[in-house]
């Protein structure tokens, strides 16, 4: 188990390297909020989500919706490492003719359930999937990752009200609580705390975790699987730009690609993380 978790964490740092390279090569994109949610996504895809990379439209699959579509580099990285498409293709990100559009697009890439990018819409779609699965008497689940800046969109609260009201216990929402949005700290731009109490009052099962700690991520998803009669909301405290010292908690890297020099420094730091984990594993 311990080695398995170290292995996952290692892969997450490899995907962070891809995120830096993709955004550097595209000279655009959103590395900060991609690096904050990559541990959660990788853990979900490799351990919980029922899916078939060779058969993305498999009828009995679980669904994942990346409501914060700007974290597309993280999603593409995880999909490539899960075998949806060759890793080489990651470098086509945001380029003309690529399946890897700036924000994830359903009509371009199999495995993307719905197009996202304009914030606030994914949870409503996830609710619809959860209702559809129940109507079909399917055992499958739907997972939806939202951002904390995104939580300021009114539609998210409409959707939280809906899923709590309908007791959608096949729905798991994960909040990537990295604390930063383009204009600064979320709590300074438009404060959201106390999030836990607010969501609980909407009839949700709320779990608070460290979004970079694999034991906690796993245990949260396990609690979700066991919870009946209400949807689950995981508040994952994360670090924007996680893994690269000069990007961590630095809002400049919300929507800015690393320069060539920053890329080099960043990759070096990420390699150091990978070496550290490999030493711990042996």
């Amino acid at each position, binding site marked *: 188990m311990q080695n398995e978790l170290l292995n996952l964490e290692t892969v997450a740092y490899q995907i962070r390297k891809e995120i830096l390279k993709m955004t550097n090569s595209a000279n655009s994109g959103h590395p900060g909020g991609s690096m904050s949610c990559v541990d959660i996504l990788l853990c979900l895809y490799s351990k919980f989500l029922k899916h078939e990379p060779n058969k993305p439209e498999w009828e009995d699959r679980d669904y994942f919706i990346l409501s914060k579509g700007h974290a597309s580099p993280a999603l593409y990285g995880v999909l490539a490492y899960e075998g949806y498409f060759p890793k080489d293709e990651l470098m086509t990100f945001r380029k003309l003719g690529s399946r890897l559009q700036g924000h994830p697009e359903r009509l371009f890439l199999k495995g993307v359930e719905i197009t996202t990018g304009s914030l606030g819409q994914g949870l409503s779609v*996830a609710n619809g999937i959860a209702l559809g699965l129940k109507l*079909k008497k399917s055992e499958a689940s739907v997972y939806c990752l939202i951002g904390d800046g995104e939580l300021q969109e009114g539609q998210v609260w409409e959707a939280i009200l809906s899923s709590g009201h309908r007791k959608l216990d096949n729905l798991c929402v994960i909040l990537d609580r990295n604390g930063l949005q383009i204009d600064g700290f979320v709590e300074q731009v438009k404060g959201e705390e106390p999030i836990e109490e607010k969501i609980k009052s909407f009839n949700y099962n709320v779990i608070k975790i460290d979004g970079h700690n694999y034991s906690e991520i796993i245990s949260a998803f396990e609690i979700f699987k066991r919870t009946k009669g209400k949807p689950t909301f995981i508040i994952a405290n994360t670090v924007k730009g996680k893994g690269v010292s000069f990007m961590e908690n630095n809002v400049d890297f919300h929507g800015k690609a690393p320069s060539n020099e920053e890329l080099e420094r960043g990759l070096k730091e990420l390699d150091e993380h990978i070496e550290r984990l490999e030493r711990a594993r042996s």
Partner: protein
Amino acid sequence: MEKKGTRDFYGKTLLELGRENARIVALDADLSASTKTCLFAKEFPERFFDCGVAEADMIGTAAGLSLCGFIPFVSTFAVFGTGRCYDQIRQSVCISKSNVKIVVTHGGITVGEDGATHQMLEDIALMTSLPNMRVIVPADAHQTSSVIRFIANEEGPFYVRLSREKFPVVYDEKNTFHLPYADVLKEGRDLAIFASGLMVHQALLVAKNLSKMNVDAEVLNVASIKPLAKETILNSAKKCKIAVTMEEHSIINGLGAQISSLLAEEFPIPVKRFGVEDRFGISGKPDQLIRFFELNPESLSHKIKLFIEKYSK
């Protein structure tokens, strides 16, 4: 001509479809008694989702249901089902090409007493601008039934605009729908009238008036505003060489604008657009408002006569 409600026939047809196909589901935003989705809701409560007063959430929920293989019909008033949730329709429905059918009631000024806030005059403009969206305004209650049946079996997004008011039928119950749709209801050679929705039966009355003034008008129902039935429209334009459009919508970016653009590119002839000028509606009884906005047959006939004279000199 007998008056029938487009929304009544929508409710009835949706219920029939629900009986025939278990994949049909319906969503409403607290207006099911008005949009008539209540008929479906009563018989199929497990397949009906009242989203409350939350149209943006409703559009996303519908998109999600479509991803599980269901065919969602989403209903509310035209004003709430377009402007209120434009971005959700744009991204979760149109960019994603989800199989969502948006069928709204209460389009246009004949909403009546509720006034400007509820009289949607820009919905056709918003919906025709969206790639992947097809936009239909049935000419009467019977055509509404055939449109609803058609879109249930056609993959991808649709926007269908219905009315609050009952108005005269122009088709019998055997009307069948296809895309694109425009048909000639009355042949003529002096003027082509392109109309949509409840202006179609008004156009037929206008044509009667005009014949008394020695103008032989051709009347077309342009039910699909997107895609346009270009060939049928161009044939009438080529025959008559002067045209007018009639719609219960802003003349900016509605049916008139679509027809004008087509004719400007393919067969430039004089075109006059009738509808609501660049302004919002006001409270009043529906028939009073039709007269106030000069969309009644007498006003239209008079203005058309002047328009024809202007170009015959």
